[in-house]
């Protein structure tokens, strides 16, 4: 038993390497160089390394957001919209309210949290009152607000000086501190890890964690024994949407300094995968977010350093991800094969 547990991840990674080598061998003119940059690039200097860590920050937030919803048995597929739209509104509010630097940062974070929570609350209310599936409505509402966000950035709040659709820059004093200059790594990393650890503790030691687990595993059981299932679902969705939006705001405050059109590029959806990869264990979310960021920055570096088309590198990224996910799913099924009922 033990052997298989250790051996199979190693085997998975080996197969992933082999397959990607073969594909690059066929398509790239410099397969060896490409592979080297893809897998080792993120560790080749502090700049790349710091950027990789920075890329994992929004994923930690959205991963935690997905995990929060899953923990109570809910699906929040609107993470992308909450992440993106929450950050845009937060930025706009911070720009338009003249206050001191620290308080406008907190104001931005609070506003984004509220907006994200609201976007997640609506689909949940629709489910509880009208019986809509929260899976579909959260996705649809999220998508709608991505375009509303784009509209705001292109129109009313666009910085006329800027070449791209973005708001004005936030004040220099508002943004989050950098940790490893010149890379993008910023203080948000610590915040993200702290939040994940907080939720880990809540799940294990708090009444709320126990209630989440019971509601997830058997809502009927939870209800019969006096838990307020609907309230728990609402709470989970509010926290999920709020944390997703917080991640977007932290990204704006830490990396861009302003809301830029399309800055979230898939962080929300990847958050779901980040959480699933570690079976929704918040203590490990930093690892799976890092893994995602590693593949992402590997792909970026490889296409930057060697003239390999970015699509090919993304293909390799996809293969590695598929294999790792499959491996996790396999090891999941074996556990309860021999139970009594």
């Amino acid at each position, binding site marked *: 038993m033990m052997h298989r547990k250790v051996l199979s991840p190693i085997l998975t990674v080996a197969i992933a390497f082999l397959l990607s080598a073969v594909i690059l061998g066929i398509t790239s003119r410099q397969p060896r160089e490409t592979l080297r940059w893809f897998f080792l690039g993120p560790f080749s200097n502090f700049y790349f390394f710091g950027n990789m860590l920075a890329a994992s920050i929004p994923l930690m937030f959205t991963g935690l957001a997905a995990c929060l919803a899953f923990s109570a048995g809910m699906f929040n597929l609107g993470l992308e919209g909450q992440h993106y739209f929450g950050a845009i509104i937060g930025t706009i509010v911070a720009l338009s309210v003249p206050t001191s630097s620290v308080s406008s940062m907190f104001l931005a974070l609070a506003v984004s949290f509220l907006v994200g929570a609201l976007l997640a609350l609506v689909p949940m209310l629709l489910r509880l009152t009208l019986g809509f599936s929260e899976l579909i409505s959260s996705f649809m509402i999220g998508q709608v607000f991505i375009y509303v966000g784009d509209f705001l950035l292109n129109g009313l709040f666009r910085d006329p000086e800027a070449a791209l659709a973005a708001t004005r820059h936030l004040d220099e004093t508002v943004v989050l501190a950098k940790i490893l200059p010149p890379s993008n790594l910023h203080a948000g990393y610590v915040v993200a890890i702290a939040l994940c650890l907080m939720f880990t503790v809540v799940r294990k030691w708090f*009444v709320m964690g*126990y209630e989440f687990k019971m509601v997830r595993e058997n809502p009927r*059981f939870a209800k019969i024994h006096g838990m307020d299932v609907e309230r728990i679902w609402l709470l989970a969705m509010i926290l999920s949407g709020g944390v997703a939006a917080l991640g977007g705001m932290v990204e704006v405050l830490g990396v861009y300094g302003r809301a830029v059109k399309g800055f979230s590029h898939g962080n929300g959806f990847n958050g779901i995968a980040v959480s699933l990869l570690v079976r929704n264990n918040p203590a490990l979310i930093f690892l799976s977010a890092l893994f995602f960021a590693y593949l992402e920055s590997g792909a970026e570096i490889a296409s930057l350093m060697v003239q390999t088309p970015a699509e090919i590198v993304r293909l390799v990224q996809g293969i590695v991800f598929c294999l790792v996910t499959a491996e996790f799913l396999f090891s999941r099924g074996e556990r309860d094969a021999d139970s009594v009922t």
Partner: protein
Amino acid sequence: MRGKTIVQLLNVQKTFYPSGVKALKGVNLFLEAGSVHALLGANGAGKTTLVRILAGEIQPDAGEIFVDGRAVNFRTPKDAMRHGIVLVHQNLSLVEELTVFENLFLGREPRRLFFLDRKKAEQRVKDLSERLFLVALDRRVVDLSMAEKQKIEIVRALLFGARVLLLDEPTAYLSESEEERLFELLASLKRNGCAILFITHDLNQALKIADRVTVLREGETVLSEETSHLNVRQVIEAMGFRSSESPRVDVEIGEELLKVSDITLRSGKRLVLDRVSLSVRQGENVGLFGLGNDGQFDLLEVLIGLKKPVSGRIFFQARDITRLSIRERRRLGIAYVPKDRLREALNLEGSILENAMVNVYREIPFAKFGLLNWALLQDYIHGMLKEFQVETNSIMQPVKTLSGGNLQRLILARELFRGPKLFLACRPTSGLDAQVQHYIAERLQQLKSWGCALIATNDAEEAFGLCDKVLIFSKGRLKRTLYKEQLTEPSVLVSLVGEQT
């Protein structure tokens, strides 16, 4: 009509991991064509494990299985099915939203290109369903009774060539008349050469229906004999029980604890409860009896707060609780055991501890400032399970590792440990062996000295054994009240309901 031996088991053994429970220590059994075989034994004797091995759901550690004289090795239920062996579960596995017809062919539809070949399917099902008096094929399963659902499962098995039927407690959720119909069905299958093995806790029933009886005790075959050579006493002794009368304590009847007035409940257009009023005093165990699902179970769901009545009031200790939440009602000292033990009373994904603590976790001193005190909870649960004789190796293990009898004890322990004022239970003794039943009867008698119980059931025997007073329900209406003096034997209840309807 008895034929050749179809299935034979020799010295079959099975140990479960990680709990290390030796479920089977060497079981021998044979099934003949055209015969009914009853499998008896106390809770945890290994009955369910045995039929699951026969059906290919789990694999034995040692021993041999022969089908038609050839050794076989079932890896999956499909392998067993190929040899014509099918298990009908206690918790049926039908898709509620589909029709009877669709359920019958689920997963094995005869096809023409990609479409269901309905004609062909209908042909195949027609003669069978006529023979077995199956209900209309286009009705949705969700509207059917437990007995009808069970019949569908059996027909489903037969359609695909089953000749050995394994039934895990087929009568656990059936009313008396439904039971009769099931037995008629089994008799007709027997005439057609099927071998039937069924698990039951009812000795009289086993001796009446079966041709042969096998008794398991702690994972071993202790008795396997033709029914004609047996009497009830021999079987009871083999199971390891002393036969005993259920205890009955007389206590002073105290204050009125529960008063229900004019409760009406609807489900869609259907009237589930029609202006039901009743009153229960401390020291009374009151049975709510109906032949099928006559509203007695729904009434308990209304009392605990799961269902909202359209009109009527509920008073508990003179306080109106009609609008209180489930949590608030439980806090007042109302306990509830739902009908569906596996889906409603337990969280099968959770550990024993998580299941046992669900009624106390949010109270001081177990929770302070939202923080759980796991050490204290573990101590408390340990004590509780010990007092109710739930056998566990570790309370951190998944609740699934407990045997059926221990699960029932766990549920009762959780609800009874803190001495509820009002104990609401649906079929508290169904699926339990005589010893555990006796034990529950004792607990319910103890309860009388500080509280009262309402027991909803469709089993006359149970109502008779546990209650001092029985209220008879029929189609959502309270028909009649029977007092202790009138409760001379279980059949009184059944015949009375017959008169009323």
